[in-house]
Structure formats: C-alpha cells, structure tokens
C-alpha cells in the first residue's frame, strides 16, 4: 500500500488531503469531524480581528456541474472567541492550520501572533478572497504588498506560514515568488475565481454582494495551471486547491507540483466522508501507477519533455518540430 504521509513545511501529515478554508471550518466540532473522517489536517475558516456576520444571503449560488458561486463576506467569530473552536478541533488530534485575514502587514502580524497562541501547527494567510473589499485579492494581487505582509507575519511568529494566493492575476508565479521572498514556507493556490451570476428574469445579480468567487469542477484546470506555473518559479512547497473531488484530481495536482491539496466544494453531497474515500482511492491509485510514496511524485509532470521544454522555452512561439501536411 502506497505511503500517503507527507511533510508540509515541517508539519508531518498522515495524508495530503486537507480541509479547505471556509468549508466546515467555523466550528471546532466540524473540523474534528473532518479529521475523524480521514482528512490529513484542517484549515480553519479565515479569522479576522473582529467578529463579522458576512454578507446577507444569497451568499451562494449552485451552478450545476460547473460548480459553486459564493460571496460569504468572510463571516467569522473573530479572534477573541475563536480559540475555543481550535481547542475542540485540536482535541481530536487534527493538525490545525489557522487561516487569517487582515488589511495591512501590521494587522496581519498582530492577528498572526494571537492565532499562533492557539496551538495551530501553521498559519495560512488569506491573500486571495475575491469578494471582500479591502481584504483578500484586493491586497493580494500586488506582489509588493504580498511580500510585505508575509515578511511581517514571518517575523512575528514561530510557525510555518502558508501564503494563499489568488488566480485572478496575470502572474500567479510572480505572486508566489513575492511570498517566497517574504519568507513564506509554502504557497496555497488557489482561492476562488472572480465570477458573477445574473438572474435574467429579475435583471439583477443573484448573490447579495453581486460579485463572488467560483469554486468546484470549473476551476480545477485553473488551479492546476497556477500550481504548474508556481512550481516552476519557487522552491517552497505548494498546496493545490480548486475543484478536487477525487483521487485522480488530487493526483493531477500532485503531478503539477502540489505537495498537499485542500478540498472544499466537493464535500457538498458526500460530506467529510469524502476524505476517507479519496484517501483509500489515492493509495490504490498510487499502487496502480507504481508510485510508492505520494511525496516522491511531486511535480513529476514537469520532468518530461516536451512539456517542460515548452515551459522553459524563451518567450517566443515554438513552432511544431516536425512539418505537417494535409491528408
């Protein structure tokens, strides 16, 4: 049976399947349940300095097989009350990664210190929520701000720091490099893709907030492209996120360069039992592919020409190497 254990920025995990931030992560009991069901670890809901109710409903819009649109508006109990939830999650044995959001480096650092005090194994910085004014991708798409924020957090705490970056950028690799320069220990990619749904009969956006973020099957190819590009740009490990619903989806991320993955939207329906299912499937898929340890295959799809050659080619068009003809 293939070995699923993985070390992520110094944190040992029994498997690479993590609960994504904002899914089942507001309460300790839910995080504990995710771990009991087979997750390798959990990421908390993104926590801020103050409690926030989030946007009014509708906060989500299901888009059939394409995925899910959401604009929750970062609801969270605030850092004063949240440690009690982490306590419950930790009691289950789960490695808990504390996600935080703030507007500026100093606030990030202060919040990080408090989050670090709760016993989490690592921090994830939400630099990527696409629909909260003044937070998330509004600050996280500027490489200099990303670098400054990461640097201030890394200086403030003694824990591994994961920078969660946005796909809504021309250059995900540039953002990842900025985070690496700031001292980040890993990159989480991706958050949701900026998106909108309009009701035609009412002539208005469906989500109360208007713009939202897309998650689920639609964004798997987008997340894979980001992880692929980031893998070619940084040396720190990558946590792949976006549209993962099966062992094969997780493997795609592994081969693109992810050392661990997070699962969110796909839990709708199967619930956290999906973690157990994917972990089992993953082990037998790795066996079938002749891979003994998950870790050994990180980024393997980069290893073979012509794909890697294409990636490393100078920035001009590569003509197909062989002449073509019509039949």
């Amino acid at each position, binding site marked *: 049976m293939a070995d699923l254990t993985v070390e992520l920025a110094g944190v040992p995990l029994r498997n690479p399947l993590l609960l994504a931030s904002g*899914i089942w992560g507001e309460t300790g*009991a839910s995080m504990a349940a995710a771990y009991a069901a087979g997750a390798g670890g959990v990421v908390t809901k993104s926590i801020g300095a103050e409690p926030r*109710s989030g946007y009014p*409903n509708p906060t*989500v819009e299901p888009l*059939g097989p394409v995925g899910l649109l959401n604009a929750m508006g970062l609801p969270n109990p605030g850092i004063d*009350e949240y440690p009690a939830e982490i306590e419950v999650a930790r009691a289950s044995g789960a490695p808990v990664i504390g996600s935080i959001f703030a507007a500026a480096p100093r606030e990030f650092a202060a919040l990080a210190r408090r989050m670090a005090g709760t016993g989490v194994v690592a921090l994830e910085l939400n630099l990527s929520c696409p629909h909260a004014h003044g937070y998330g991708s509004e600050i996280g798409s500027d490489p200099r701000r990303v670098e400054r924020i990461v640097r201030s957090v890394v200086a403030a705490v003694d824990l591994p720091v994961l920078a969660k970056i946005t796909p809504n950028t021309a250059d995900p690799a540039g953002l990842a490099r900025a985070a690496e320069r700031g001292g980040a220990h890993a990159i989480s990619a991706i958050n949701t893709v900026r998106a909108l749904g309009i009701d035609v009969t009412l002539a208005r956006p*469906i989500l109360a907030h208007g713009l939202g973020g897309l998650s689920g099957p639609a964004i798997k190819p987008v997340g894979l492209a980001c992880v692929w590009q980031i893998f070619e740009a940084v040396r720190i490990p990558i946590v792949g996120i976006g549209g993962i619903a099966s062992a094969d989806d997780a493997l795609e991320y592994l081969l693109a360069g992810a050392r661990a993955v997070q699962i969110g*939207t796909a839990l709708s329906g199967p619930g956290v039992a999906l973690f157990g299912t994917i972990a089992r499937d993953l082990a037998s898929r790795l066996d079938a592919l002749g891979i003994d340890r998950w870790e050994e295959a990180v980024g393997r799809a980069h290893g073979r020409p012509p794909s890697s050659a294409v990636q490393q080619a100078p920035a001009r068009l590569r003509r197909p190497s062989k002449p073509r003809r019509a039949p």
Partner: protein
Amino acid sequence: MTLPSRSIVPISEVVHETPSTVTLRFAWAPAARPGQFVMVWIPGDDELPMSLSYPNGPMGGVTVKAMGATSRAIQTLRPGDRIGIRGPYGRPFDLTPRRVLVVAGGSGAAVLAPAAESARAAGHAVDVALGAVTASELLFRGRFERMGASTEVATDDGSAGRPGFVTPLAERLLEEHPYDAVWTCGPEVMMRRVADLADRHHVPVICSVERQMKCALGLCDACALGPLHVCVDGPVLPWESLRGLEEFGRSFRDPAGRRRAYGSAPP
C-alpha cells in the same frame, strides 16, 4: 457533483393562515418529502430556509411566521411577486411509524402538517398537540382536523383549548396512548421538554430543528450543531443524535459563527 439550481417563480396564491402567518403557494413542483426545506429568496432582501408546508403536487408552498425583517417582508408579498427557490434540501421524516403523536409549537405546524398528512394518507393514526400564544395563532388547526388527526390545542392565554404551554398536553397524550413515534417542531426548549417526556414513555422522538443557514449545501458551517450540519444531516433529526449535544435547546450560532445562549424571547 451537480448541485440543483435556483428557480425564480411567481407567487400564485397568498393564504393568511393566522394574523402573523402566511402561506405562499407557487408553481414549482418540489418533488420533496415532508420535512425537507427550501431556501426562499426575496429579491432585494434576504434568503431564508423554509420548510415546505406543501412539499408535493404541482404547487409547492411555504408557511412563514413574522419574526424579523425578512419574514415580516414576506407577509407583504402578493400573487405575481417573484421569489427565488432552491432545494429541496435536507432529510425528511421517516413515515413508517403507524401511530404518531405530533407536538407543534408556533410555526412548527408548518412542517408537521404535511408530515402528518402523509402519515394519514398511508392510513396511520395521528394525534396532534398544537400550541400557540393565542387562539387565532393556532396554525393549521383546520388542516389537522380535516386530515382526520385527533387534534387538541393549548394556548398561552387560554383563549382556546388548554391554557398554558403545549407540553402538559403532550404529556397527557403520552400517558393515555401507546405511540410509535413523537414528531415535534417548535422552540428548542419545548422540543427538549417533549423529548424528556417521551423518553420516560420509551417513545422515539423526531425533532425538526432550525439553525442559521447560508449555503444549505453542507459547506459553510453556519448551521453547525455539535458535529451535525442541520442543512444536510437535518433538519429532521432523531432525539438520539441531539440528546448528547449540550448546545441543543441552550445555544445557537449567530451569523458570525459565535455561540450565543438562547435568550428569554422565544426563538
């Protein structure tokens, strides 16, 4: 993974059930089972979870009690106004018990009436203990009677039936009759009390539970109740899975996810 999508439907009928409660009927055939709920969007306002008081047939329906801003806004809707519906969501009632006691408090009758109706249609016996603050607020009293359920009522102000809470009424019925199940919906303190009583008579209890809801898809954790998520594990839940949860009947989560004690005002 394919999530059911939203429908925008015009309201076809508005029925004023009590001074504080209206039923909205709409041409949306839910193909749901009693106990399941939908998310009802009032465009320009909020979106709320609502049990289907009419879960089958070509005309779905929900029955809404005026509580806060949105449920009050709903009282003013007129036929032709459009609302958004997504669902149905959640677990329904198990309709196999052959002799059921229904204990309804306030708007709890909205979800219990269709469940009782289906039980009656299957030829099962249903007794109803129906409570409200005052006679005019007794929801679906006529509907229970018409379906052939033996219906007794209690009102806080004594304006109809037994004065006071519905729980003593339920207690008497439990003493008098052997039930296969108790179905209850109402304030959690009431449901806790009903469950304690039924426990003493060794009758299994099923509660229909309400919690803050945002996604209704089992993702956002807004509806967390211990390790349960009311939107997918509930809203219909057996007392066995609630009994051990110290939150049930005592605290809820606010929209920020903070745990808050139930106040004196009935939720």
